[in-house]
């Protein structure tokens, strides 16, 4: 959807090279011509202005020593103190590391698995089986993290959980998976895969449906096997979808599910479990350090923006197609 818009814009930009006055007049003409479309745009702009950009003035408390009683405007400015405090804090490298590691694990393992599952489903020709499997793999998405965490606690319960016994039997160990820091990340990724892989296939399956069937026939005539067809037709066919989804996933990447991590954290695994989101909750909401936690949240957003632009730039470099 996005790619055509970008292309449609390009000729317009090329056409508007004449000097400024002409361009201004042409904009007035253009506006008069499209006034209805602009009117349609208005609610969207208003929505973003009021509900998305308006509240951003609250971000200013990251640069203040906010006391609720004094209000946002009444609280004194403190410049970058909150940021320098955070960067100097021994927690900082740990939080950044934990957040990035979890984010990349999710991205590196859970994201490709979604594509793999979509490809597998796509290869199923028996439509009853395909639909049943699809419905079944969507179900975990509708369970809340609280339920997923409770299930994990039951399954991995020390000494008695069935998966506890299975995993420890497999590795010949005897560790408490729920509190062992080494097991925290695998557990989180595992939960993420279990809960969201099925749901993530929806868009890929839609994209797969648009791949030209004639090409498959041609490939079969040329003697291509299943894997060849997947590699040379299916994957290139959904490449742009993959890239768009990847950029979107990276945009969400640092939002390492607060609920999920919060529920799985305990004193023994906190060293690897603390991420920006849980930290913001801990110092901001429970301790009332609003300014400091806003600064942390703002920093997280900055990292997120850098990641999105970085990925977009990279994908443009390699594929000439990006999100924007």
């Amino acid at each position: 959807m996005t790619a055509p818009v970008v292309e449609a814009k390009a000729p317009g930009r090329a056409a508007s090279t004449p000097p400024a006055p002409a361009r201004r007049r042409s904009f007035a003409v253009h506006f008069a011509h499209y006034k209805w479309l602009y009117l349609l745009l208005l609610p969207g702009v208003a929505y973003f202005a009021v509900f998305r950009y308006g509240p951003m003035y609250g971000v200013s408390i990251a640069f203040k020593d906010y006391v609720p009683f004094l209000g946002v405007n009444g609280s004194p400015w403190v410049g970058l103190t909150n940021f320098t405090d955070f960067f100097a804090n021994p927690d900082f490298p740990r939080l950044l590391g934990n957040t990035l590691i979890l984010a990349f694990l999710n991205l590196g393992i859970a994201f490709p698995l979604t594509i793999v599952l979509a490809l597998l489903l796509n290869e199923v020709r028996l439509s009853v089986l395909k639909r049943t499997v699809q419905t079944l793999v969507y179900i975990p998405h509708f369970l809340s993290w609280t339920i997923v965490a409770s299930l994990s606690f039951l399954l991995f319960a020390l000494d008695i959980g069935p998966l506890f016994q299975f995993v420890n039997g497999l590795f010949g160990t005897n560790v408490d998976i729920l509190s062992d820091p080494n097991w925290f990340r695998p557990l989180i990724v595992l939960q993420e895969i279990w809960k969201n892989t099925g749901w993530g296939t929806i868009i890929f399956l839609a994209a797969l449906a648009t791949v030209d069937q004639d090409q498959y026939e041609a490939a079969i005539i040329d003697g291509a096997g299943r894997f060849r067809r997947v590699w040379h037709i299916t994957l290139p066919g959904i490449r742009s979808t993959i890239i768009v989804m990847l950029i979107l996933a990276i945009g969400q990447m640092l939002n390492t599910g607060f609920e999920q991590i919060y529920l799985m954290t305990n004193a023994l695994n906190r060293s690897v479990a603390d991420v920006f989101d849980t930290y913001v909750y801990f110092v901001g909401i429970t301790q009332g350090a609003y300014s400091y936690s806003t600064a942390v949240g703002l920093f997280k957003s900055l990292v997120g923006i850098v990641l999105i632009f970085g990925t977009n730039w990279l994908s443009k470099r390699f594929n000439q197609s990006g999100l924007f």
Partner: protein
Amino acid sequence: MIRRKPTLAAAVVVSAALALTACGGEAPASDLSSVKIMAPFLEAQPPTPDGAVQKKLEELTGKDINISWAPNASYEDKMNITLASSDIPHVLVVQGKSPGFVKNAEAGAFWDLTDKLKDYPNLKTTFPEVQQNASVNGKVYGVFRARNPIRAAVMFRQDWLDKLGLKAPQTTEDLYKVAKAFTEQDPDGNGQNDTYGITIPKWGALGTNSPYDMIETWFGAGNRWTERDGKLVPSFETEEFLQADRFIKKMVDEKLINPDFATFDPTKWNEPFFNGKGGIIVDVDSRVSVLINLFKQANPSDFQNKVGFVGSLKGPDGELHAHPTDGYSGFLAIPKSSVKTEADLKNVLTFLDKLNSKEVAVLMNNGIEGVNFTVEEGLAATIKPETPEGKVVNTDIKSYAQLGTNVTGNNFYPVKQASEYEQKVFDDRVAVMANDLKSAVYNPAAAFVSPTYVAKGAQLDNIVADARIKYLAGQLDEQGLKDAIKLWNTSGGDKVKEEINKLWQDTKK
């Protein structure tokens, strides 16, 4: 152009509506015929405003009462969010001197009641030292909610103890012996090695009256802060703290404590005790009746002598260092942004004074006489069988009791226990706690709030709290625990100590 006008108009309407909603939250000044209160509830459901208790409460105080109940578990979050909103109640239950509260208080968000409470007969406390504990460096920002200062107890399976021919523990060494026997000598007699001594749930934070805190106090580490060589130091910097944790670690290593103590769900704390897995719980004494009730529900004819208990234990030095709480559980504060003038303040204080009168205390703690209880020999006996009205009252008072301050002592009737056995246990509890009170080790820094601690105390304490659990679990050695304590100091703890000591010196002058 013509089309633009409606949009402009719409924009005006939208912004006007936004402005209105922004103002709508503020309480109109000096209209205090109705009092807005924010309070926590611990039951599954908060009481409804049309319940009999609320009706009676409104009748007795002569005010319309509007209580917004927030679940206890997330009360602190809700309170912080409420303070940041424009909809602030007239009376706010504050659960403790959290950084959020202190910051607001020091910015002038709450009325300073230090010199005001003495003018109200029911608010003039008979426990001035507790009021001092509840103050912020001597400034009283609320009417504290009094609690029994001594609540620490060791509960154990009396039937197991009898079977193994052991005596109730009196010292921490006894505790170890009983825990070992409960683990190794098959106290349930099923021929299997399936029991352990002490159950500890996921409960790490420092200074929250956790089992760890209690045992450390018993060893003589003090209570949060302690005086050493003329200075106040945090308990965890004492040798006794290390001794206590070595003692607990020894029990963990010998599997006398549940191995999943770092993750065990606190809401299931009673289950191993009741199901005959873990025979000891170290917690507040009110759990004794909870446990007895569990056994009673399971088997009404044979529940006696299942639960035994003692109070605080003697440490290795042979002395009793009883572990007290600060004697209060938060306080009722009055925000300035909703109660704007001195006249309004008097109005609200008069209301709080009535709230602590004998009549209201009885209503909020016992209920309505003749509906859910009758008075027998100065005790409140619950009416059995419970009528539907009585049931509602019985449930509701558990929440309304949260509004009780009892700063002049308990003005309501002690509850008559359901059976002679339970009455005896209850009386025993009162006696044991009264005895421990004589040896209570109070937190000498309870009243002091250091600015550095407000800014990052919780993160600091987390360093030591997590290290303590890691040490007990074997993830850290003793040097690692000591390093964490050093890190506490270098990350800002040094400054906290300096500030606390300065405040302490100032009060001595």
